[in-house]
């Protein structure tokens, strides 16, 4: 019950925090037009979130996918914008943007639309990996009343925030880069892996390319590419590495901003003759800068907490002991679904004559099942298992490649080799274990 309240309160406050800070910043630097469009964009985000929440649209995978990607691109875009805005001399210059947008309502509307899109996921959806998004109200089957209670509380607190921010003139504590930086930090509260997808995609392309060459050239083995080499590649897309790289990236950005602010020279102040007067203005600027630095430091602190939290929660490796597989006289095996429906991988070993092979059976997030060998076409099998599970990924213990469980059962590359199976009476899986010995041997020949 209260969980529903907590969730809505959480997202509403987060959306308010982001919206208000940006809104007041734009007001502070006198960009009224932009601030209005921004407010409209936020409204769009809120309303859109509700529509998605309470209509069937929110359950459509393609829409979730769109939002997820849009979210990611915008996050990246924000970092980029933050960097681009650095060359601005004055502390409050939004470089170029103002000039480009001047008088172009269409662009302003587009911009506010983008911002609304950015708010959407915060406000209505929780997007997990592999777009297994849940619309938190519906799919968790939480009662609407408690959700609305959270929303009401969020609105109340949000209005409080509005008056507080207006009172302290929050906008003056930010420069454009530090503002974006704080937004990233606040968003990281929700999802610390801001750049992870890009980085994983790059690493995976590299990895698959190397694998592809090996397969293509029919190299008998990893003659040159030893386990060490594979581990090196895999290092870049292990979960904690990715988290650390993300945080390092964002932190260095923060430190860059700090140093930049610190080293920015004071303006010339033509027309001010008295040294004392000039120094006073400079002192004021310096004070403002210190506040701006504080906002960056606050963002760093938030990130640190988020990072620590995510690191602590980091999933461990699940590596089950292989269970002996019972096989009938024809070589067929039947595994009851009850054994595999937990979502955790199951490993079975099968000995026939002097040969020994292993199977993986797993229930996928979409509810379907996969039966595979515990080996792939490329890496030699390791003991006691070749794969282990880490959260929603299988992990090749030889080369370290993570395989999203949703793709297990598909052939090729680093994926475990799939075995044909039948689903019988919706209660058990049946497959030919003896036939699979040949596949295993072909795959591992010469490794």
């Amino acid at each position: 019950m209260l969980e529903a309240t907590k969730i809505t309160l959480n997202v509403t406050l987060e959306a308010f925090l982001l919206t208000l800070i940006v809104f007041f910043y734009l007001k502070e630097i006198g960009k009224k037009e932009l601030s209005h469009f921004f407010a409209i964009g936020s409204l769009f985000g809120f309303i859109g979130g509700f529509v998605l929440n309470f209509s069937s649209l929110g359950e459509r995978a393609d829409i979730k996918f769109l939002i997820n990607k849009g979210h990611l691109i915008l996050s990246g875009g924000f970092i980029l914008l933050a960097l681009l805005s650095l060359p601005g001399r004055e502390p409050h210059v939004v470089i170029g943007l103002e000039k480009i947008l001047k008088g172009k309502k269409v662009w302003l509307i587009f911009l506010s639309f983008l911002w609304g899109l950015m708010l959407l996921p915060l406000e209505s959806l929780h997007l997990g990996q592999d777009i297994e998004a849940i619309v938190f109200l519906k799919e968790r089957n939480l009662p609407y009343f408690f959700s609305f209670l959270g929303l009401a509380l969020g609105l109340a607190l949000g209005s409080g925030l509005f008056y507080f921010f207006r009172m302290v003139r929050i906008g003056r504590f930010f420069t454009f880069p530090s503002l974006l930086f704080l937004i990233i930090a606040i968003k990281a509260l929700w999802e610390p892996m801001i750049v992870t997808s890009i980085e994983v995609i790059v690493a995976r392309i590299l990895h698959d390319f190397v694998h592809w060459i090996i397969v293509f050239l029919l190299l008998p083995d990893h003659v040159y590419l030893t386990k060490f080499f594979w581990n090196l590649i895999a290092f870049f897309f292990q979960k904690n590495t990715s988290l650390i790289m993300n945080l390092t990236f964002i932190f260095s950005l923060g430190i860059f901003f700090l140093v930049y602010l610190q080293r920015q020279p004071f303006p010339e102040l033509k027309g001010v003759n008295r040294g004392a007067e000039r120094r006073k203005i400079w002192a004021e600027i310096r004070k403002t800068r210190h506040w701006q630095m504080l906002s960056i430091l606050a963002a760093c602190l938030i990130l640190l907490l988020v990072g620590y939290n995510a690191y602590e929660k980091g999933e461990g490796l699940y590596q089950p002991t292989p269970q002996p597989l019972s096989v009938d006289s024809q070589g067929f095996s039947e595994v009851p679904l009850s054994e595999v429906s937990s979502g955790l991988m199951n490993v079975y070993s099968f000995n026939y004559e002097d040969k020994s092979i292993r199977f993986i059976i797993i229930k996928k997030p979409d509810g379907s099942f996969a039966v595979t060998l515990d080996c792939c076409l490329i890496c030699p099998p390791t003991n006691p298992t070749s794969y282990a599970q880490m959260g929603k990924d299988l992990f090749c213990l030889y080369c370290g490649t993570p395989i999203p469980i949703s793709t297990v059962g598909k052939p090729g590359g680093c994926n475990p080799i799939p075995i044909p199976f039948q689903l019988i009476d919706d209660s058990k899986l049946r497959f030919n274990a003896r036939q699979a010995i040949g596949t295993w041997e072909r795959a591992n020949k010469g490794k």
Partner: protein
Amino acid sequence: MRKEKSPFLEIVNLSKFFGETKALKKVNLQVKKGEWVSVMGPSGSGKTTLLSLIGGLIRPTEGKVKIDRTDLNSLNNNEIAHFRREKIGLIFQQHHLVPYLTATENVMLAQFLHSLPDQAEAEEALKRVGLGHRLHHLPSQLSGGEQQRVGIARALINSPALLLADEPTGNLDRENAKIVLEIIKRLHLEDMFTIILVTHDPWVAQWGERIIRLEDGRIIGDKVVKERSSPKRRTS
């Protein structure tokens, strides 16, 4: 134009008692912006007390001091300190320089307390008082006259509207006193700040445009001795 009419410094019924001692008794005084007023009187007549009250260093027993239309009584201690930093420069007989800071650093300290230090500006100010060759000397390495000139540079670095000087030449021989007074005169012509200068020396007093005589805590004489100087452009 209204601004011209209301006096820059207005003292109304100002009294200060130290227990039994009545150092100042119902003093009334008005000083125009940019005026140079000398305050003369024998020892114990209340000159320093008057200056301290104007500078907000002590609180009056009675009456009020208004500077640039701000009543000092309406300010709390913090606000008075802030007001002093902004508007008032102080020079004493004892220079009160920080002994382990160089001339430049002593001036920069005043800048720092006001807003932020600016070495180039501090050095420029010292050059204006003829100490371009003594920038990095400690007070102990400077003569009395030079020390007092550092004191002047420090008092004026934040462009105060009012300069309060208590026996600024009290420790100096005639020759050095003349150098110091020449400097004050030049800077006064350039920046047109108001000066209240306390002295018991008639020769020093006649550098001002108006001489106030104090005796036993009362004003007993007030006369204009010179035409008001008109501002000169700074020539450096």
